[in-house]
């Protein structure tokens, strides 16, 4: 289900008092936050821990959220996600368990074998992580968080132009690296 700006505004106001409204927001944003986190972190367990942390923080601070012109709920939530991931990397040296990766949804252009799809994810995640931090964040937010350039600009507090140029540069670099690996 996709919310319009007005619907989401109403839902957030409601969610501050009504738990069912919060559940709607949770169900809508959970897959996006999970995918974004998975590409930024890698391992399944670490991803799950961080995602749980992100939603707990969002839930506890929902009353502090103020809807503004450039601060949508999505940008607020993804900023929490971004900061939580940064904290995670600061706290410990991350070890990605290659035997414990998230499952990849089947798709017509991907291999039908789940293991092969997981292998592709491992490869892509590694490539994304090898990008400069800003480009990796922008690519992850655009492709896995499904955020528009304008929202990414609000999340990272940079201009939309910077987002666009970093996205293009990042994708080209990723493609080059991907060709090398293949």
């Amino acid at each position, binding site marked *: 289900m996709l919310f319009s700006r007005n619907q989401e505004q109403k839902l957030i106001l409601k969610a501050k008092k009504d738990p069912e409204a919060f559940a709607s927001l949770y169900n809508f944003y959970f897959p996006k936050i*999970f995918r974004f986190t998975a590409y930024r972190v890698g391992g399944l367990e670490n991803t799950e821990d961080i995602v749980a942390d992100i939603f707990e923080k969002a839930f506890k601070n929902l009353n502090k959220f103020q809807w503004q012109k450039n601060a949508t709920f999505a940008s607020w939530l993804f900023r929490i996600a971004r900061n939580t991931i940064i904290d995670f990397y600061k706290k410990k040296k991350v070890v990605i368990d290659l035997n414990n990766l998230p499952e990849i949804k089947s798709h017509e252009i*991907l291999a039908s074998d789940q293991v092969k799809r997981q292998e592709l994810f491992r490869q892509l995640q590694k490539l994304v992580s090898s990008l400069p931090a800003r480009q990796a964040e922008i690519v992850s937010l655009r492709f896995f968080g499904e955020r528009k350039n304008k929202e990414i600009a609000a999340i990272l507090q940079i201009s939309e132009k910077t987002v666009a140029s970093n996205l293009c540069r990042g994708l080209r670099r990723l493609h080059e690296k991907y060709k090398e690996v293949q």
Partner: protein
Amino acid sequence: MSIANDQNLLNAIEKMLNAKSGDYLQNNSLLGFCSRLMAAKPQARPKFQEKLGRKLSREQRFLFPALYVKQPAAFNLREKIARFRLTLLPRFLTWRNLSMAASFVIIATLALNKSNNYLSPSKLAETSGASREQKFLFPTNTFTIEKIQSQNARVLKKDQAFQLVEYTLFDGSKIIALENILL
């Protein structure tokens, strides 16, 4: 299709991400790569999403219990009284508030007594029918001996709390006393 510049690439990505099915361009190798990147979507274990949802829901129950449990009216009233006792009552039951309340009661009683003219000694004397000379009032308790020795006592007027009594003393003189019946 060739991607000449960034804008074209951005437009192609926009188109790709908005496409409902997988019918996006794959001819160009860069876009082909983008489409693979977009398709490789990691999924959470359904149990995890459910478990986290339940955990958040429990926390919400803790924070907003009233939103979850529809309590019967009687329970609500009991709960309201208990809440009043625990929160509001201690605030009211301070020495300052109690002394203020006591002062208010005393002032109100005095004001009421003052406004009740028919109870005042002078009013009682006026309406008693006693002669001008006799309208001389003494506090009752100072005339106990005379009262005992008096041959004749006549109640001139009686009220709930007071009575006006005319005493004829042994030497024939008369006094009118205002007596408090309640004492």
